[in-house]
């Protein structure tokens, strides 16, 4: 399972910059970042190269952060590639709470991050359909 960092942020200008600076100063590299916001606050989701250390660095820096387990899928780079993945999850009755995408700098495949209610079952459902589930080691140092 992929360890994603989720950070609670008040809607205050400069707060996201502070967050990224804290990680940058600690030498932590971000692979992907997604901001979900409501009228009152935001939740920032991050994939970074050392998630456990990133969590400690953020907590020490005064941020409310926690680790969330998500799954990462290498989505085939062709029309309908993402649809195949989502249909597989859908037929298993697995609900996708949110998803976001980033492109690996080394390869040509897009990596999609999914937050589903039952990641273990989702993983095996995708594997039986021949869809490549990305292991943590491929994205970051499992620290």
């Amino acid at each position, binding site marked *: 399972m992929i360890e*994603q960092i*989720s*950070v*609670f*942020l*008040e809607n205050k200008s400069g707060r996201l910059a502070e967050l990224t600076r804290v990680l940058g100063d600690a030498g932590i590299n971000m692979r992907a970042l997604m901001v*979900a916001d*409501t009228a*009152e*606050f935001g*939740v920032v*989701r991050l994939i970074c190269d050392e998630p456990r250390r990133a969590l400690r660095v953020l*907590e020490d820096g*005064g*941020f*409310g*952060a*926690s680790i*969330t387990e998500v799954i990462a899928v290498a989505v085939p780079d062709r029309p309908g590639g993402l649809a195949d993945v989502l249909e597989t999850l859908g037929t298993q009755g697995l609900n996708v709470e949110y998803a976001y995408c980033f492109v690996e700098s080394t390869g040509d495949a897009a990596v999609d991050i999914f*937050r589903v209610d039952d990641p273990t079952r989702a993983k095996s459902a995708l594997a039986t359909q021949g869809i490549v589930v990305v292991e943590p080691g491929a994205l970051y140092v499992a620290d």
Partner: protein
Amino acid sequence: MFQPDFEAMPRTDLEVLQLERLNKTLDRVYERVAPYRAKFDDAGLHPSMVRSLGDLANVPFTVKDDLRAAYPYGMFAAPMRDIVRVHSSSGTTGQVTVVGYTKGDIDRWGDLMARTLASAGATADDIVQISYGYGLFTGGLGVHYGSERLGSATIPISGGNTKRQIQVMKDFGVTVLAATPSYALMLAETALEMGIDPRKLPLKAGVFGAEPWSENMRTQLEEALGILAIDIYGLSEVLGPGVAAECECKNGLHVNEDHFIIEIIDPATLQPVPDGEMGEVVFTTITKEGIPVIRYRTRDISRIIPGPCSCGRTFRRMQRVGGRTDDMLIIRGVNVFPSQIEQVLTGIPGVAPHYQVVLKKRGSLDHVEVHVEVGPDFAFDEIKALEHLQRRVGAEIASALAISIEVKLVEPKSIQRSEGKAKRVLDLRNEGSE
């Protein structure tokens, strides 16, 4: 019990003692304190007319403004050569007032605070860390003399320098902590941040006061620190800490009635109310020499808890102070005490008991924002859960206070921690409309 002869005195004997001491005190202030003499004369009252405890109801009240008008020494009933200590009020509600103590006052104060510490289970074997501020504020030195009177090893660390407080607590084997409840909570949080589990320390009891706190906050402090937490009460105009304290039953604070007469009055009619009914707390000191106060209106809201206590003390109990008439916020015509908000928050999992109330004007209407910290262990990924939490806090506060408010969730530990009295209210209503 530190002084069972007094603390468990039969009520009939106590009332005889009270009347005798009251008469002495009235004579003393009438002879020595010009403002009292003038006030009594205006009311057509001579001390000799007070023949029973019930007659006290005919004596004029004293209010904080009387003490302010007499600043600094005008209400002292002893010459300065007999005064050995001067303190002043913490100025929580404006201009400070000055109080003086004779040698005898300091001596009695030590006894009263020793009673307080003993009711938390402290003995000469204990090590007491006093994290109340020392100085003009009565908290630090007040507890200090009681702790020494009890024979406990007394650590006069005062407030502030929180990490050092934790180190001392751990290294010195502290068993009893005296602090404001909000500072005690901050000590617990800081200890955990330093990798020290306060529950594994020898600490066993805490005496907490100087600001209103709730029953839920007690539960939190007891769990976080692994202690018995008792509420203590006092105010500098009456003495300082040592006026009243909870016993191990934790059901109301026994008033040291051999030194203070407590009355509860209706703040509107100024008439005493029967035991059990809420009202403003009024104290008369009956042993103080430096600056006795007669029917001093504290502005604190409480009631007498009727009936005897199972601990054996015969002193009546006052309910923990839930608010002050002058802390009371009037929001769209509704009376609100900040402690009511705290009571709600400590009952909701996922939020920390740190909060700030921000009052603004929107047009001609009062607008209330309550800033609430999300607890550090929240699953921050769940927006739905955060929104649910926000709605729940809003609904529960609205239902407890009967006003609608706007809840703003703020980041963990972002509300400023206080080392003394917590500043819970930011009133911006006079600073223009939004």
